[in-house]
């Protein structure tokens, strides 16, 4: 009986461990500093996590489909620079769709290489990280990009506006999470993504067009990157060429923290959102507790490894790995 209960506990922890950890963190921080759970603070944290969060939503699709995307940070820099540059040349109404078109084209190129040519996604997106950075520098000539007339445009609404008292970035993040969550959980396309990532060969034999599904996971990812670039550009109204540098790995950390397996076939949008929020709230909580800003990286390291370790330990039924 006791064994059964322990096993039940184990399954619960394995399934919802990340949620339990999240709640424990929130309670711990709230006890340490009541300011932590004030509405202002919470809304501030979510707002500043929104850009990373939006990118993580797209990468979740790619990872569930059994691939990686290391190019999102570099691609976000590209979107930001392009939309800022075109804003002054074409006006915001044309600049935004043009930027989305170009970013989606990059996503389509990666999707073609990984999906149809079946090249290794780690190397392809690593190469694209470098290549897109080159494109961005070519576009901007290496200079910072700024909007000339910062007060005479409605472009700042995406990053700085509020609607019904809620900051727009949070609304966009929530809306995108809801829509993509529905697509992943409730549509045939979503089920195919799980099938392809879970067992590609089996998926092919059951008539699922593997190449096309993988292709579209990268389309989703680049769409999210374009949204993130829009938020970033609109929030700062100016940008360096390296604004997204290094974000690919933080995004991946959030997705993994949410429990998506790098082998593909598992993970959900909801869990990724939790992963993003955990990263954001840890950073904020540690700051409020007076720890050095950079201590959050060390804590994130420990949490990522513990989260993944406990997850696989629960699945295999023993704590230490069977590696001799």
């Amino acid at each position, binding site marked *: 009986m006791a064994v059964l209960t322990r096993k039940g506990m184990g399954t619960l922890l394995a399934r919802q461990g990340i949620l339990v950890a999240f709640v424990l963190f929130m309670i711990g921080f709230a006890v340490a500093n009541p300011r932590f759970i004030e509405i202002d603070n919470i809304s501030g944290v979510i707002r500043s996590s929104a850009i990373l969060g939006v990118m993580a939503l797209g990468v979740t699709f790619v990872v569930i489909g059994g691939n990686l995307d*290391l190019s999102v940070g570099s691609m976000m820099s590209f979107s930001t620079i392009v939309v800022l540059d075109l804003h002054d040349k074409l006006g915001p109404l044309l600049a935004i769709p043009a930027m989305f078109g170009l970013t989606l084209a990059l996503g389509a190129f990666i999707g073609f*290489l990984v999906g149809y*040519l*079946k*090249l*290794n996604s*780690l*190397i*392809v997106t*690593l*190469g*694209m*990280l*470098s*290549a*897109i*950075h*080159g*494109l*961005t*520098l*070519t576009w901007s000539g*290496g200079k910072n990009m700024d909007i000339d007339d910062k007060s005479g445009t409605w472009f700042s609404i995406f990053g700085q506006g509020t609607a019904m008292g809620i900051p727009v970035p949070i609304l966009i993040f929530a809306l995108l999470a809801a829509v993509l969550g529905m697509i992943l959980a409730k549509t045939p396309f979503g089920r195919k993504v799980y099938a392809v990532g879970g067992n590609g060969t089996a998926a092919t034999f059951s008539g699922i067009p593997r190449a096309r599904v993988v292709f579209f996971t990268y389309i989703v990812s680049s769409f999210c990157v374009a949204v993130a670039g829009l938020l970033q550009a609109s929030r700062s109204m100016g940008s360096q060429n390296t604004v997204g*540098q*290094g974000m690919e*790995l*933080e995004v*991946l*950390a959030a997705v*993994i923290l949410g429990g998506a397996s*790098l082998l593909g076939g598992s993970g959900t949008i909801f869990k990724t959102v939790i992963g993003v929020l955990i990263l954001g709230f840890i950073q904020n909580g540690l700051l409020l507790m007076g720890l*050095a*800003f*950079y*201590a*959050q*990286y*060390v804590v*994130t*390291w*420990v949490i*990522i*490894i513990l989260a*993944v*370790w406990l997850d*696989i*330990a629960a699945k*295999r039924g023993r704590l*230490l*790995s*069977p*590696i*001799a």
Partner: protein
Amino acid sequence: MNSDTRATLIKQGAIWAFIAVELAFFSIAGEFLAVTDQAFMDFDNMLLLLKQSAPIGIIALGMTIVMINGNIDLSVGATYALAAIVLLDSMTWPIFAGLGDWVIPVSWALALLTGTVLGAVNGLIVWKTGVDAFIVTLGAMLGYRGLVFMYNGEQPTSHLNWTLVDFAEAQFLGLHTATWFLLGTALVLWLVMTKTVHGRNAYAIGNNREAAVNAGIRVGPHFLINFMLIGFLAALSAVVFYSESGSVNPNDGMLFELWAITAVVLGGTKLMGGYGSIVATLGGVIAIQLLRKGLGHIGAGTETVNLVIGLILIAVLFLDRQLNRRGREALKI
């Protein structure tokens, strides 16, 4: 059998053929486009190229053995920065004040020890928890970088020791100190991977882990040794570079892991493990540095270098797969 050996030859020779093409291209293009009068194939220029290859090169050599073993290490850039800080900072510690220039070997040892310990931490976690090396070292990349920043905030850590600078700038038999370290590392690792039991087992584990376990090979210790080696080499790379420059920024070494992996993959090492060669990685490192210098020579900027290297990486992947596929089909007949 005959076509098999030919395929292997083509694969191992490919990177050197690529280097030859680069040399020819930049020499000829340089005649028309060069920003300076100096010829590209200038001897001093080539010596400098080898020296500049050393920091990424030493790390890429370590990455090769980790990847042959079937793992990957994304934390090398952060390890590099932390080892550099320990190197420069420890030279100013009061307890070593009485040592004079004897502080140099002590600081070197401390920096190398730091790298080895950080590598061992990764190795132990991969071994004992069974978490994928990609995730473990991704986390460590953040964590170690956090330690770097906690050490000295966003301030650079600087200390110039002129004896050390003289040593780092010295040339022996025409080659710079850094080049000797690069070549020495390559030689030692080549011996380790081709002549020792550890090397043979590392290939076996990367090729087919289950088979290796069934053959009685203990997988864990080999993982640990390889991660300690790459940690040591990341620190060695820092030691060689910062002995000369004398100042480290907390952001130094960022994206080094990606450059190192690019060099390793250009050299033909397989991501899945079990296949790869130290000598070919040396070729990959030189090819990348040649591309950077060559594009600079004909007046192209950083943006073109990034673009070209990214696309070449993808092209290599594509060609490699086409070659392999043909090989497999030939085998079937």
